[in-house]
Every structure is written in structure tokens, then in C-alpha cells.
């Protein structure tokens, strides 16, 4: 990209500001640990050494919402937990994204009853839904890479 192809390698890169900002956002996105139930175990397996997440920039998971930009809702959201989820989403600073991991977070999953929210998108806006019960770690990595594609296509004005 830019003029360095013509003049050798002077150590200069030219790009648009939007592409630079989006690139930096994807390369070091820190998720918040929101593991609720069984999907959390697969999320932990994804963080461990077999399916390493550090190679995609998620070296560590920040427990504090003030320091994270991605919320992976892993597990079923019950009636008592719903307001807590919304509160934590509101505490996260912009720009922020949400991945609904697993069937219970996407659509209520196996449980169609009084106690579970039928999909976490009743409470927070979701960017990527990952299907599976629980999804394999490769499935979640595919979901995260899909989110990266979405972020790279964003405009700066989306997050005023």
C-alpha cells in the first residue's frame, strides 16, 4: 500500500486513518470474562495452549468492564442475571462489540421456559452470533475472525 513499492523501503507506510484505526482495534481486542455456564469452559479451552487466542491479539482477558472492548456472552442468561449484563455493557467504554457465544446466548438454546432470556439480543445489541452447544473452540475463533472482518469494514464516524 502506498508509495514504498516504488521507492524501495524507506520505513514509511501510507494508508488511510480509518484503516489504521480499525487495524489497531482488531489486533489487540481485549475480551471481558463473561463466562456464565458451559460455554465458558470452551472459551477457557480456547484461551489455553491448544487453540491459543494470543495469536489473535487476545493475550489476556480483563475482568473489569472499564478496560475491555469485547464482551463474549458465553452461557445462558437467567432472569436474575439480565440486569447485571446490561449494567456491565453500559459500563464498557466505546468502541465495544458483543459476541453471543453458543445457542443459549443467541436464541435461548435448549431452554424455552420462564427462567432464561430467549437470546441475549433482548438486552444488548449483538454483532456476531456463534452457533453450537457448546461451539467448538475453532467455531468461536471463526466467530472472532468474522468480527474482525466486520470491524475492518467500519467507518470512523460509527463511534463518535
Amino acid at each position, binding site marked *: 500500500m502506498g508509495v514504498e513499492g516504488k521507492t524501495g523501503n524507506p520505513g514509511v507506510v501510507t494508508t488511510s486513518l480509518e484503516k489504521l484505526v480499525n487495524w489497531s482495534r482488531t489486533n489487540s481486542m481485549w475480551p471481558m470474562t463473561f463466562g456464565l455456564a458451559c460455554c465458558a469452559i470452551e472459551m477457557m479451552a480456547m484461551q489455553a495452549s491448544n487453540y491459543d487466542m494470543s495469536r489473535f491479539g487476545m493475550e489476556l482477558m480483563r475482568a473489569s468492564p472499564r478496560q475491555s472492548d469485547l464482551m463474549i456472552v458465553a452461557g445462558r442468561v437467567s432472569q436474575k442475571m439480565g440486569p447485571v449484563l446490561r449494567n456491565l455493557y453500559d459500563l464498557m467504554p466505546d468502541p465495544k462489540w458483543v459476541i453471543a457465544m453458543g445457542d443459549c446466548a443467541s436464541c435461548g438454546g435448549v431452554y*424455552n*421456559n*420462564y427462567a432464561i432470556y430467549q437470546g441475549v439480543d433482548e438486552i*444488548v445489541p449483538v454483532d456476531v452470533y456463534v452457533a453450537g452447544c457448546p461451539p467448538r473452540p475453532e467455531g468461536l475463533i471463526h466467530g472472532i475472525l468474522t468480527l474482525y472482518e466486520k470491524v475492518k469494514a467500519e467507518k470512523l464516524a460509527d463511534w463518535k
Partner: protein
Amino acid sequence: MNEFLQPVVEKFKTEFKAEASEFRDEVTLLIPAEKNIEAALLLRDEFGFDLLSAVTAVDYCPQKTPRFHMVYIFYSTSHKTYLTVRAGLDGESPSIRTLEKVYPSANWREREVYDLFGIHFEGHSDLRRLLLPPDWKGHPLRKDYPLGYEEVQFTFNFKEIDVRKPKGEI
């Protein structure tokens, strides 16, 4: 029935006029609900049932007497046997005395039964909801409480359900 449980059943029949039944090698005793503390004390002190494994309830809804059955499952670590004791309860919000003083583990178990069935426990130190939010109305595991499921939106009922769905930004 093994020889350890035989004297227990005899004692229960004479003291509480219990009805004993046996199904698949398990003994169940049906006692009147007012005698639950005496029965528990007898089992703990005289016969050595040191664990109260489970406390739960069953709702026989359209049937009025009894409407509920309280089920207590006792276990003896020395003789390795289970014993199920049931007590029948009637009415919309029945009440029974708490077993908390005899077995401290009954505290949370009875809170859960109160939460899900609405059975009051007299003398309980802290009777509030355990699993559901504190302002929830109703007791879910009763048979007349609906499951609360979301109806699936097929093509034949698409428009009726679409009208009821909330729309807009979060």
C-alpha cells in the same frame, strides 16, 4: 427390605401410624405432616441417620387431598441405606414446621422448596427466595404455573407473532 430398616418401619407404624410401601428395594414411609420434627429426631438420635440427603416436594395439582407431598430422603453412613419419608399437605399455601434445628442442611433446601412451590416453613430463620429474583410473583414448579415458553414463529403464524414482538434500538 434389609434387616436394618425393619425395626425403623415397625417403630414408625406404632408411633406415627405411618404407611410403609416398598418399590424397587426402596422403602417409603408416609407420616402425618405435624409429626415431621419428631420423626426426624427419632431417625437422627435413635437409628443413626446422620445425613438429610434431599428435601423436595411433589405437586399433585388437580387432586385436592393431598395437594403436595413433602419428600425427605435420609441416609445413614454407617449402614449405607436410604429411607424416604413423605408427608401430605393440603391447600393453596400450606405450611409445615421446619427441620432446621434437627438438620442444619435443611435451611437452604427449604428455602428452595418455598421458592419453587410456595410451601411455608414455620420457625424458619430466613425464609426468602433462593433461586428467583426477590420480587418474582408465583411459584414456578406448581402444576398450574405455565412453562412460559416462547412460541416458535413458523410461516403459518408469522404475522400474529410479529405484531407482539418488540421493535427498535436497544
